[in-house]
């Protein structure tokens, strides 16, 4: 039964960090190219526009949940299980979520890259 806790934490981390990444990416796409905005209007305009995007705050909060999920997971499971398992699964979950919610075109090239990196992360922890 004890094995359930680390995996519950991993599930929570993957769910929360994927949701957070999608929300933050969505927010920043709405803000637009930050570098250009900085050059035209200055850094305060950039910060103001980012903070005014409601999904940004929501994304930050969800990322906070993911962080506490990690702390919880680390207190129950091994570092060598929790970190790579959640990182690899988050890579794959993000690719699926970005395709569905952000309408990114995840072509063959990106799928291969995502799976290679996820597999590499797992191998590095073995």
């Amino acid at each position: 039964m004890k094995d359930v806790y680390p995996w519950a934490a991993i599930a929570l981390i993957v769910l929360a960090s994927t949701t957070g990444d999608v929300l933050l990416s969505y927010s920043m796409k709405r803000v637009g190219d930050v570098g250009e905005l900085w050059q035209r209007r200055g850094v305060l305009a950039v910060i103001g526009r980012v903070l005014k995007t409601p999904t940004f705050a929501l994304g930050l909060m969800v990322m906070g949940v993911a962080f506490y999920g990690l702390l919880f997971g680390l207190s129950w499971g091994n570092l060598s299980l929790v970190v790579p398992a959640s990182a690899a699964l988050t890579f794959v979950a993000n690719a699926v979520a970005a395709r569905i919610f952000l309408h990114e075109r995840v072509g063959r090239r990106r799928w291969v890259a995502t799976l290679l990196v996820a597999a590499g992360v797992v191998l590095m922890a073995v």
Partner: protein
Amino acid sequence: MTFRKYLVLAGITVFATAGDSLLARGMKDLGRVSLHHLSGLLLAILNPWVTAGILLLLAFFSCYMSALSWADLTYVLPATSLGYVLVALIAHFSFHEEISTTRWLGIALIAVGVGFVAAGPSVTPSRHQHALDTSPDAVSQEVKS
């Protein structure tokens, strides 16, 4: 992709790796935080290693948000995963830690994956992007270039 954008991607990799390492170093000083004394986590920011780590993670977050403002999530995430490789190489060359064959294989897979995605386009036209493209600003830029 301009040189500045590659710099931002490199910043994500380096700041995240260095920030995490400093945090881990600082948490070693504090020892294990028990679930009954979570207030210990609040005092953790007084540790100079942790403070430095948090500053670097803020730099990471700024770079990450900047990258997400002009590149796809499915581009940024794999492209910046070289941090895992960086940590292993630093551990190997500065701290002389052994790296097993499986870990070298993992390093190779990540490196190939990063190369694969970085060689492709950083942003793909999506519904949202399409709306941006039709704005007069984008059109005038396209005409200029």
